[in-house]
């Protein structure tokens, strides 16, 4: 394994971390449209918190996918063709939620506003759940053949472990979204987000414990890397505790950063466990390895130069765009 290959393995992890940190809260906020907001005016405000940002957040996914294609074509090909139907449903969910914000805002009748509100809610829910399901089933190992082609069956994708993983990621996104709402609104919505999180955090703890137990039985992570895996799982729980402490003590930033770091811990856990593989085959001889799944040294070097010259600039204006919208949104007046 060369340094460049290692670097790009880490960079893909960084890009997915960015994606889960950012899109995590806007999936969460999306799920809240029809569940948390009590009327049309509240829905407007909830959507407005992510209005200027969701599209930029999604670009992290597109960048991660593109970077995977460029730096590890074998990984990209195996993962994307192997997870055909799951990715197809993710795409459908992303499409529905993506257009729903703009379409909902422009519908004239309550019925259609309602329809697109639900499209945003269910789309966000499904996308978060399916991403969790996909990555969890991936680390459990998949039937991959000599050519790198995966031909899996329903139960390889959907089983107790992957469903728990999917639910855990969904709940994580949900609390992350609520923490974001706490930061971005004032009044009634901000108070309600607090009371929701007080209930959801205990659920999340339970989910994380079940997930950790299943991780032990379903993957080789604790066998192969007992130390780091344990450390990251502990970190995941610690971040969640910190976030919960932030919720209880009314420290909004702490809880938001805490839930964001919990999501990132999940990504780190996965990438740490994968290393030095990128796809785990049931027959370990056919696992895809970092060293033989990557692009040529020339392409990796080129990509490195470009990424390190462009990404800093992107980060500057990306963060600036959040700064532009630092103000809180008032909750709508209760109309009796």
């Amino acid at each position, binding site marked *: 394994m060369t340094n460049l290959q290692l670097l790009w393995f880490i960079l893909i992890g960084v890009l997915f971390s960015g994606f889960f940190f950012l899109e995590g809260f806007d999936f969460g906020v999306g799920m809240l449209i029809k569940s948390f907001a009590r009327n049309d005016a509240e829905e407007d405000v909830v959507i407005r918190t992510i209005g200027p940002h969701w599209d930029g957040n999604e670009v992290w996914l*597109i960048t991660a996918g593109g970077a995977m294609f*460029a730096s590890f*074509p074998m990984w990209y090909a195996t993962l994307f063709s192997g997870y055909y139907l799951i990715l197809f449903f993710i795409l459908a969910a992303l499409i529905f939620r993506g257009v729903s914000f703009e379409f909902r805002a422009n519908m004239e009748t309550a019925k259609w506003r309602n329809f697109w509100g639900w499209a945003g809610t269910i789309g966000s829910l499904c996308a978060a759940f399916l991403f969790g399901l996909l990555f969890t089933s991936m680390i459990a190992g998949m039937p991959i053949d000599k050519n790198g*082609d995966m031909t899996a069956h329903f139960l390889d994708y959907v089983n107790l472990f992957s469903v728990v993983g999917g639910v855990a990621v969904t709940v994580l996104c949900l609390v992350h979204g609520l923490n974001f709402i706490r930061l971005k609104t004032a009044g009634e919505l901000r108070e309600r987000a607090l009371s929701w999180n007080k209930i959801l955090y205990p659920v999340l703890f339970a989910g994380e414990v079940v997930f950790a137990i299943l991780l032990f039985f379903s993957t080789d992570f604790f066998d192969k890397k007992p130390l780091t895996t344990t450390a990251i799982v502990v970190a995941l729980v610690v971040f969640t505790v910190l976030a919960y402490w932030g919720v209880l003590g009314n420290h909004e930033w702490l809880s938001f950063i805490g839930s964001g770091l919990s999501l990132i811990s999940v990504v780190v856990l996965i990438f740490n466990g994968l290393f030095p593989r990128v796809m785990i085959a049931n027959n370990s001889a056919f696992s895809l390895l970092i060293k033989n799944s990557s692009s040529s040294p020339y392409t990796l070097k080129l990509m490195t130069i470009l990424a390190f010259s462009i990404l800093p600039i992107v980060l500057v204006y990306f963060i600036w765009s959040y700064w532009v919208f630092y*103000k809180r949104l008032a*909750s709508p007046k209760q109309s009796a």
Partner: protein
Amino acid sequence: MLNLGLDILGLARFQFGMTTVFHFFFVPFSIGLAFVVAVMETMYAIKGDQDYKRMAQFWGKMFLYSFAVGVVTGIIQEFQFGMNWSEYSRFMGDIFGAPLAIEALAAFFIESTFIGVWMFTWGRFNKWIHTLFIWLVMFGSSLSALWILAANSFMQNPLGYIINKQTGHVQMVSFSKVLGNPQLWNEFPHVIFGAFVTAAFVIAGCSAWRLLKRDHVTFYRKSLNVALIIGLIFSLGSIASGDLQTRYLINNHPMTFAAMEGLYKDSTNKGEWTAVGGFDTKNHKSTWSVDVPYVLNLLSYHKTTGTVKGMNKVNKELHAKYDKKFGNDMNYYVPTKTLFWSFRIMAGAGALFALLAVVGLIMNRKKSQAIMKQRWFLYILGLCLWLPFVVNTAGWFVTEFGRYPWVVYGLLTIADAVSPNVSVASLLTSNIVYFLMFAGMGLVMVVLCHRTLKAGPDAANTDGYAAGDKEIDPYSKGAFNHD
């Protein structure tokens, strides 16, 4: 198993065609609208004329709808290579992945960040700064076109690579050659100019329908004027860049060019150009045609003499060149009728757009009322708002079918590129669902644009949040003493 005569390859090809064509309805429309709206807002910044601000906001609404659909259908494209074409991805990843990743990093971030800022900050920034945001969106989306076309150009005309002896995959050896591909620099201006023309004629067409109803006459006449000036400049630009591209094809893709002109046999020195014709694609000959002498040579070489190779000859040459590697049962004839007619639609529409723009600008002079009296002309403009979408699709057909039977020209056939492990059932499901979703989204788009148009430029901003939301500065005193 139920056998419907469907195979993975056919379904994957259909899906690629369907998703690309649908995506490409919205891409040129969005790029073009970003440009036109940017021009309008710039006019506002210069002149301070509120009409231009209203124009930028009004047509900006359509831009936002189109952008939303363009974005979500774009994600399908990136995922599709891995999902449906895993063998292609393995073969091409070393070269194809890089432009795709750079596209996301350098272009998508700019457009998605600044479109968010632009749409929610009317009146919050100095007008020049706010105008800069939409120019950045326009810059980002044009840049994304450049990178994806760089990737596409390699498929048309591979340059700057070697074949890795161990893996048999392509490997990049010169990024500057990949980026300097003449195919790219012939294709990119044509696509961008076409995008500007698309937006210009949609705006012109929409304005024409409103003018027929004598609705907001000043507003729509001004919009029409901006649209037609842009339409004129860039339809001429499209024609010129199209001409460059065509002449590039004669040498680099003689089969594509011969099919575009419907030539099975080599042309004679007289340069007979087939204006319209019928073809027997099985026996590789033309059945009837209306020929005009010299035009073929004028089009191909800008002079009256010369000959162009016909498909039959090119087919023999390709067999001689590739039989060793790919076997002698390959079919090198491209879908002739599709290319022939697509090319005619494209070229004909280009000329029509330029003509309409000239006539429209003359009629729409400030002091003249001609445009309001010549209702037939407004009807024609109104109908032509659909034409750019047909033309863009035709252009895409010429490029992509012209590559047949290759996915990467001379290196990888379409049949060898498909994912072997995806089932017919999966592909069939995704095809049907995509189709239904696209039909739904297309319908909503048309309804929304129509409604926006009917509501007119004075309608309140229905984005709901842009105008009336209350914001609280968390750093101001008393920010947390809400109510």
